[in-house]
């Protein structure tokens, strides 16, 4: 599953790498996209420095 993780600081990214493939580390804000297993989502939420976690949604064209 793909998760969008809001973090306090970029040092948390290394810890996130343990739980899956980091797809995106924002240069503009403290947000990370990660591809991980469903069972690891709960573990990611508990990492110190993780503010919140949400599943990546699907966008649709507006026509």
């Amino acid at each position, binding site marked *: 599953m793909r998760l969008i993780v809001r973090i306090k600081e970029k040092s948390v990214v290394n810890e996130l790498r343990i739980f899956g493939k980091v797809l*995106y580390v924002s240069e*503009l804000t403290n*947000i990370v996209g990660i591809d991980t297993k469903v069972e690891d989502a709960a573990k990611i939420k508990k990492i110190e420095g993780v503010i919140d976690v949400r599943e*990546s*949604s699907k*966008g*649709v*064209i*507006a*026509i």
Partner: protein
Amino acid sequence: MRYIVEVKELSAEVLEKLKKNSRIIHIFSLIDNTIALETEDIERIKELRGVIRVYESGKAKLMLRDALNLIGILDVHNRGFYGDGVWIGVIDSGIDISDPLVSGSIVLERDFTEEGMYDPIGHGTIMARILKVVAPNISFINAKVVDRTGEADEIDIMRAIEWCTNSGADVMNLSLGIPRKCDGSCPLCELVNIASERAINVAAAGNNGPEKDSVSCPANSKSCICVGSMEKDGTVSNYSSRGSPDYLKPDIIAPGCIRYGNFKLEGTSIATPFVSAFAALLLSADASDKRRIIDAILGTAEDKGFPKWVQGHGLIRASKALEVILCD
């Protein structure tokens, strides 16, 4: 040249005869006995036994003149502003590089879907065409996030917004959205807020109206221009997503219904590039302050008499906004 050929009965024998004199492009499944083919000798095809009718394949054209007149774009063109030097990030399904209207204007492109740099559904190409008709001298940053299923992953949308921002986009066109309730604080909206410090972000309100609080993300972002759709009669389209009395989105409305050849296209998708390209026209008049451009767009809109959470500031008025930009 390409033709559509109707035959009395599509037998193996007829097909074999057609193949000898042409290249078969497609055998239609929804209409009986009809084939699309390419040939340089259509007279020979017409003479074949069993061929009933032959039509030359037409070219679908965007019919935007009414919409351009309605919002005053032609006045801006007549004053010599065409979007020169402005880069628009098109975050969509890609842009078809075989389309001569738009292909020569792509300065950068990147595929975030991992399915290749082509437009599988045509949506991004149509958005690019509308942008190009409204602002003929713009350039495109082509960011493909919508795949062949018509969907885009939220992380890919965020990556594309950031890539376009870092690549120097002046305006970003997002004719897509994630339908959900959001007060503008989700990570996607937060990112757009930050990206808006460098580029003008324009996003479709969504087609989930007339329910209240039905605006999609990232159009919910406070710094993003959220675009709703207006009908030809001046009313807000029923499908156009609404905010609520406590949540004043969309920001503006634009024409959301156009003709493309024989097809009618409608949606807040269509309305969005009118506003993005309009912003590009104003930036080509004065690129010194993007916030001023947004204020001019919103401040000169025509009040159509609907609540703010339905119409925003109202219908865009290009010539009025240009006057503000040039007079200040």
